[in-house]
């Protein structure tokens, strides 16, 4: 579904990503783990079209998307849940969800999908008239995920869904992400919470200093000595 090939990205003179190549299969969950500053957020921003590339290409279902604008990429079916959720604090919960259904293909299905998102996240239904800025951290993350589902995406990009959340809430959010994947959505997630993230993964990639160091299945990652020592702490 998604294929990233020899991608290099930088901010001005400062190169952040070097020669990144990987694939995400339809219906799978791929996880990119790595330390702070490795370039994980940069990678997702580049896929969403927010950052220009230096070289390389990105394909969605075989179509190159690296020259497309962010709104065109969303129209093509890639939706991102950005770091920290980035909900619109002065819009109500329901208006935030409506923003999610902005792409033309999603608008006519707004009511059905809203019902579905409220079933997935009952707490959002209880708070639908409230300003999103008044939600707790976990609720904001749920709103951001719900908002992304409103656009009926082919591929969901999740940027550190666990960031800043209490362990219990992280477990809950990861369970929801797993449920969403089970319903057929393809997921590409970047995470610092390596152990939890790997449990969801079909495939995993280790990103260090802008390069992919290790690729493999969940089992291979859990068996890898370096990963165990540096990231899981076993």
């Amino acid at each position, binding site marked *: 579904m998604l294929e990233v090939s020899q991608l290099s990205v930088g901010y001005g003179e400062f190169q952040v990503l070097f020669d990144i190549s990987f694939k995400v299969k339809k219906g799978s969950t791929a996880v990119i783990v790595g330390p702070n500053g490795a370039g994980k957020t940069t990678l997702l921003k580049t896929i969403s079209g*927010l950052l220009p590339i230096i070289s390389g290409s990105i394909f969605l279902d075989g179509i190159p998307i690296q020259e497309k604008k962010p*709104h065109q990429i*969303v129209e093509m079916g890639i939706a991102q849940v950005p770091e920290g959720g*980035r909900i619109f604090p*002065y819009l109500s919960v329901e208006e935030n969800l409506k923003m999610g259904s*902005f*792409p033309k293909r999603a608008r006519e299905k707004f009511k059905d999908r809203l019902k579905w998102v409220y079933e997935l996240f009952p707490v959002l239904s209880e708070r639908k008239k409230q300003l999103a800025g008044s939600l707790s951290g976990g609720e904001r993350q749920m709103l951001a995920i719900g*908002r992304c589902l409103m*656009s009926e995406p082919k591929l969901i990009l999740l940027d550190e869904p666990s960031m800043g959340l209490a362990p219990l809430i992280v477990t809950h959010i990861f369970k929801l992400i797993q449920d969403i994947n089970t319903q057929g959505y393809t997921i590409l997630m970047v995470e610092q919470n390596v152990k939890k993230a790997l449990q969801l993964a079909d495939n995993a990639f280790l990103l260090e200093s802008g390069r992919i160091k290790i690729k493999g299945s969940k089992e291979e990652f859990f068996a890898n000595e370096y990963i165990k020592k540096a990231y899981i702490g076993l």
Partner: protein
Amino acid sequence: MLNLIINAIINGILLGGVYALLAIGLNLLFGVLKLIHLAYGQFVMIGLYILYVLVVNAGLPFWAAAIITIIVTGILGIIVHILIVQPLLDAPRLNQLLALAGLIIVFENLSMVIWGADYRNIQMSLPVVAVGGFYIRMSYLIAFIGGLITLGLLYLFLYKTYLGLSIRAISQDLEGVELMGVNPKVNFYVTMAAGGILTGIVAVFFAPIYAVHPHFGSSFTILAFIIVVLGGMGNLLGGFISAFIMGVVTSVAAFLTTSEIADIIAMLIFIGVMLVRPQGIMGIREAR
């Protein structure tokens, strides 16, 4: 005496409607583009001149002239966006301010060259009607109703359409809006066109009240800014409320004292509110 005070309050409310109409566009531009449109009053002035030319020189009926004026100011909004605002969108705020201040000079001097320094009005005097012992100026009543309708339509646009929703969201998080599939350029164009259209509407309702001259704009820009800042910048409802406060205060104070002292009282109230609530009546203090 009491009757006269009530009459002053009624006039103040009507004046508030006129002020509200004036401030809507400025508020919208700030809310969406974070644009401090210094040349806003000059836009209204250009609208009034266009209306004057169409009605007095070209002899068009008022309604036709009004429609053309609103369209032309809308287009003018887009032109200013392309030439001045868009190139400076990421520039320091001061550059934007200076560029728009430059636009004031361009508009004022152009008006001076084309129409001279004379006061011009379209010679459309509307009556003052007596209703149950109170005197009401029709021109203010019409502007008041026009203000309410305009605000209602803007509300429907901003709160009931996808484009309106995304225009409200874009002022909160530009990149976040792009990730929702919104093309921000479209939003900016629509907002600047709407800002232009609103100045055109203001000009249409102002035409029976005010005569236009090359320095007409500045005082109205200042007035509009005071209303917008008092209400909370970018907050449409706040701007609406503060317009009525300013209208009633000015009108009642002018009745009890003189119009010069009324202006001073209005300014004192404005400064007082700013000292207590710098974010304005309905504004939200941003924690950044």
